Structure formats: structure tokens, C-alpha cells
């Protein structure tokens, strides 16, 4: 089970982790700017005849109120593409970072950010918001709010189930999470069955999508996500100790109980914030930490920032594919993350000399 602590990393990367992190940061920056050029109206990823030109896009990025450009060009860039790319990056970073923390806390390679019920709780919130018509009456803002609230309540319930005499029992917590997710999943299925006209709206949310990028979402996510990532990063050393076992961690001066609780709370909070706005995007939080672990090893002082940076790039790329692969239509981004990430991960897994990420 604790195989995630003993992975033979790529030795060249391991010798100079800072350089590798810089590389990932540069990759993220390049991804961010490139992705702004990708979309249904081009210049990249379009077969439209009257697509936007590179020069127009540059102008629009540099000058939001440029008078030489048509209104639609600046609107596409500033109201849709930039917030969308930022949102994808934030969600990818949040999920990958939270996933890394969860895998360390549970000392289980199958752990992901959704393991303690965040996704199923959020799904209940989002689907009931749609069904009782609140989105129509109160405004579309109700859905993320309700999803977030239900996710936090569910996590708290699972946490209480997994805590015995004030101590977090990792195995019990894991099983409670699985059971609660199965139970809530059944309710969501029933809600979908009886959703009628709202069926597609629910389905899109459950598959995850960035089709509603809003600047308000970006601003509301930015600080919680940054804070969560920073906190998890600060406790990298303690997470390393925790991987060696709770006894060892204690002897090394870290209080495993406090640490586990803090990490669970931060990861749950960050994940709930991510899924509330964009729906359940699977795979990123599970696979990106493993990908990075194969490359940089299990030292969380390097692994956490690496997973965070790569998670952001990965999801921006996945979303860029999702919004251009079918002309004039959008695929749910969750479809792409699994389709591209799965084979790539298997490739890394077989190539890593030990092949023992889940030994």
C-alpha cells in the first residue's frame, strides 16, 4: 500500500528538481498563451473561413478596448477565452494538488480528491439546484453555491464517520467515502432519470465542462485555490514523514492527527471549490500526481508544486481539445482528460524502470 513512497524517479530530474519545476512553470506559461489562440473562431483549431487572425488576437490581448478591432474579437478573447483558460488552469492545479495530498494522507495510490465524497456531495447540490428550478428563479449562481455547500456537508459527514475517538482512521474514512459516494450516486442517478427537460444540463455538469467561463468564477476561485496549494506545499516535509508511517512521523516531530485533519480540510475545500463551478472533472486529481511521482519521485516538497503546475497545463490542454475537436460543438472536458491521460499514464508506467507505481 505504501508503494507510493518508494518510486524510483528519473535520476536526471531528481538531481535538479528546481530546474524541472522551472521547466514546468515555463510550460504552463506557454500553454496559457497558446490556449488563448485556440478556439472555434481560430486562428488555431478552426476550419472557418472568416476566422480571426494572429495579429488581431495579439492586439486584442494587449489592448482590451482597442478601437481597431471588431467588438466580437475582443469579446471572444476577454470574455470567453482568457477566463476559460484561467479557470481550467485553476481547476487543474487544485485537483492535482489536492489529489497529491489525499494520496499521501491515505497512503493509497487509488486515492483522489473525490475520495471523501466531495464529488457526490457536489453532484447532489448541483442536480437539486437544477431540478427544483432554483437556477431559473434565483439565477445560475445558485448551482455552484449549492454544489459547494453540499460537498462540504458530505465531506464533514464522511469525516465524522471515519473518526474514532478523535483520531482519523484512514481505512474507515476511505470505506465511508466509498459507501457515501455509492449512496449519493444512486440518488443522483434517480434525479437524472426524473430530470425531464433538465437532463442534459445535469449530464453536462456531471461530465465537467468549462462552457460557462466567468470572470467572477475566476476571482472567486483564485484565492482559495492559491491558499490551498500554498498550505499543502508548506507541509511537504510533514507529508513525506507521514508516508513513512504515523509512528515514524510522530518520531520526526510531526503530529500526524493534526496534519491529516489539516490536509483533509484543505484538500476538500479546494476540490469543492473547483467542482462547484465546473462540474466533476475526473482523472486529473488521480493521474497527474502519479505522472509527476514517476518523474520527480515521492518528495512532496518537489512533488506538490510539480503536480500543481502540470495539473494546470494538463487541464488547459484537455479543454483546448474539448472545445475544438468537433467543429461548432464542445465535448465535456472529462471525456478528453480520461481519453488522453489514460494511455499517456500507461506509457509512463511501463517505461518507468521499476514499473512499480502501484506496487
Amino acid at each position, binding site marked *: 500500500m505504501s508503494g507510493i513512497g518508494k518510486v524510483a524517479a528519473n535520476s536526471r530530474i531528481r538531481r535538479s528538481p528546481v530546474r524541472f519545476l522551472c521547466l514546468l512553470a515555463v510550460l504552463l506559461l506557454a500553454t496559457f498563451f497558446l490556449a488563448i489562440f485556440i*478556439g*472555434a*473562431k481560430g486562428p488555431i483549431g478552426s476550419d472557418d473561413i*472568416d476566422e480571426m487572425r494572429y495579429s488581431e488576437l495579439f492586439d486584442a490581448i494587449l489592448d482590451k478596448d482597442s478601437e481597431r478591432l471588431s*467588438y*466580437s474579437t475582443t*469579446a*471572444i478573447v476577454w*470574455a*470567453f*477565452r482568457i477566463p476559460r483558460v484561467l479557470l481550467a488552469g485553476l481547476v487543474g492545479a487544485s485537483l492535482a494538488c489536492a489529489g497529491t495530498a489525499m494520496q499521501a494522507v491515505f497512503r493509497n495510490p487509488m486515492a483522489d480528491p473525490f475520495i471523501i465524497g466531495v464529488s457526490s456531495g457536489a453532484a447532489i447540490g448541483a442536480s437539486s439546484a437544477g431540478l427544483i428550478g432554483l*437556477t*431559473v428563479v434565483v*439565477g*445560475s*449562481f445558485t*448551482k455552484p453555491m449549492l454544489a459547494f455547500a453540499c460537498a462540504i456537508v458530505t465531506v464533514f459527514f464522511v469525516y465524522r464517520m471515519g473518526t474514532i475517538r478523535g483520531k482519523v482512521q484512514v481505512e474507515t474514512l476511505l470505506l465511508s467515502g466509498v459507501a457515501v459516494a455509492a449512496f449519493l450516486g444512486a440518488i443522483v442517478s434517480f434525479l437524472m*432519470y*426524473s430530470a*425531464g*427537460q433538465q437532463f*442534459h*444540463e445535469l449530464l*453536462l455538469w456531471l461530465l465537467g*465542462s468549462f*462552457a*460557462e*467561463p*466567468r470572470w*467572477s468564477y475566476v*476571482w*472567486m476561485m*483564485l*484565492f*482559495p485555490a*492559491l*491558499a490551498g496549494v*500554498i*498550505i499543502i506545499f*508548506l*507541509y511537504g516535509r510533514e507529508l513525506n514523514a507521514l508516508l513513512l508511517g504515523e509512528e515514524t512521523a510522530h518520531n520526526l*516531530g*510531526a*503530529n500526524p492527527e493534526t496534519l491529516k485533519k*489539516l490536509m483533509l480540510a484543505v484538500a476538500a475545500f479546494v476540490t469543492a471549490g473547483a467542482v462547484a463551478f465546473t462540474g466533476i472533472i475526473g482523472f486529473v486529481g488521480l493521474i497527474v500526481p502519479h505522472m509527476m511521482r514517476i518523474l520527480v519521485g515521492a518528495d512532496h516538497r518537489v512533488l506538490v508544486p510539480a503536480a500543481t503546475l502540470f495539473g494546470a497545463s494538463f487541464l488547459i490542454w484537455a479543454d483546448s481539445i474539448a472545445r475544438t475537436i468537433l467543429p*461548432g*460543438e*464542445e465535448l*465535456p472536458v472529462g471525456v478528453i482528460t480520461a481519453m488522453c491521460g489514460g494511455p499517456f499514464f500507461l506509457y509512463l508506467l511501463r517505461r518507468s524502470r521499476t514499473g512499480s507505481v502501484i506496487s
Partner: protein
Amino acid sequence: MDRMLAKKEFTVWITLTVVVSSVIAFTGGYMVGATTSGEDEGILLVDDYGRTIKLDKIPERIVSTAPTPTEILFAVGAGDLVVGVDEYSDYPAEVLNITKVGSYTLSTEVIISLQPDLIVSSDLVPIAQLELLEDNGIPFVVLATRSLDDVTKDIRLVGILTGHVEEANALADSLEARIEAVTEKTQAEGVVKPRVYLEYYPYWTYGPGSFGNDLIALAGGINIAENTTSEYPMVSSELVIAQDPEIIIYTIGYMTTTTAEEISLRPGWGEITAVAEGNILSMDDNLISRYGPRIVDGLEELAALLHPDLFS
């Protein structure tokens, strides 16, 4: 180690404070920003979601995001204003050459670049996407057609919206007259109402609150699924056999996978009256599932199938 941990805890509290205050600030800003509105003269109307829409002038470029609004727009003579339609709109034939703007997920970039001054949508499209476009200066109207009365009401509404009031009213009046002509016969005293099973996909049918359920009633039939719990329920063979429909109708559309033969060969269905008497009929799905003017064609066809003697 203790001092280091204390320092970290301090950092954690600082970041949390920053986070909570920033989220509150941004949420507050959003709530305030959403309530502003302008005051101009022009078209003022309330759509099917109860939203008040104000337009400065009659729109010149309209995007329709579902087949029902597309068909209504064309039927009232405003087809030349339509510059974009969803993937599923395919009627009337002119629609096929119009730019496609996505379906349940809209291609916002294509819509923005079409520079429409109005979006006409249905309740099938997630409203948040429409609100995002509205924030960028493109207003939208939602047609949530749930009954035959809504159809004619929405036709009149689209008439006002597009400046085709007379055509729209004339169309709505004639549709109402045709509906009346059908129901006069089917709801007359002494008409025997057959039990009907209307299937749009194997074992999936129309339940209470759905359009199909209303159509069967108006066409003078009894829907065997009228007491189920959901709008579009999946029924069991047992229910169908127990309710023993006298007429089975399956719709022919892009989802069709069945035939009259397949239905008659379903296990246990041989004893059903409709099967035994060879009353397995079919209808064009578009006449039942699109809530524009063609729905009245659907009602007339359905009534003729249920009561061939009344409509010969």
C-alpha cells in the same frame, strides 16, 4: 520543529483570512452587478421563464438554439432574420444552410462572432450559458413550451419580438381553430377512447406532464402511462401488458431502432390487444417532439390514427 510548526500555522491563518475576505468581496460585487438595468423605449415582454426582456428595437440578427424556436421563427415569417441555429434544427429546409452554433453546449465564440441582437432559446439549453452571453450584450428569450396553449402563446410572443405580429396572430388563430376542430370530435359525448401506448424509444414513453401525454388526451385516447411518476418514464413489459393498450404507436425519428415486427415479438406482448389486432402504427417523431406549429399536424395525425372513423 515546534517553532517551525507555529510559524506555518500562522501562515495558514493569514492565508485563510485573505481567502475568506476576498471571496466575500467578490461575491458581493457579483450580486450588486447583476441587478443593474437600463431604461429605454422599445420592445418589452416577459418570456416563459418569467424574465422581463427589454429590446431597444426589433432585432435584425437572431440566433435560435433549439428546433422549436427555429420552427416558430420561420413559421411567423421571421426566417430571414435568423443568422444561426443549433445542430438539431433541420426544418424548414432553408435552415440547413445557416451557421450552426452547437446544441446543448453552445459554441459561444461562433455566436459572438455572428453579432446577433437576440437569442431565442428553449428550456433544453442550460441557462447559465445564455446568461453569460447576455452579460456580453446579447439578450435572450426562453420559450419553455409545455402545452398546446404554450405553443400558440409562444408564436404570438415571437411575433411581437420580430415585428411579425399580424402573421403570428393569424397563424396562432388558425392553429387554435384546427385544435378546436380536432377536440370537438374527439371530446364529443359517446366517443370511445382507446388505450394508447406511445413509444419514442423501446420501452420509453410519455408520462404525466409531458407533451405526448397531453396530445394523446386531446386526440381522444387514454395514455397507459398517465399514472407513472416521471415525464419521460421507462416502462416495464408488465405495465404495458397489464394496461393492455388497444393501439401501440412508435415514432420514427433519428432515435428509432424499432419496427412493428420487433414490438409484436417482444416476450409476452403477443397477447396485447393492439398486437393481436395488428394495431401497431407509426408516426413522424418530429410532429410530436417539436413544439412549433407542426405539433398541430401531429395532433391531427394522432387523432386520425386513434379515430379513423371520425377523420376519414
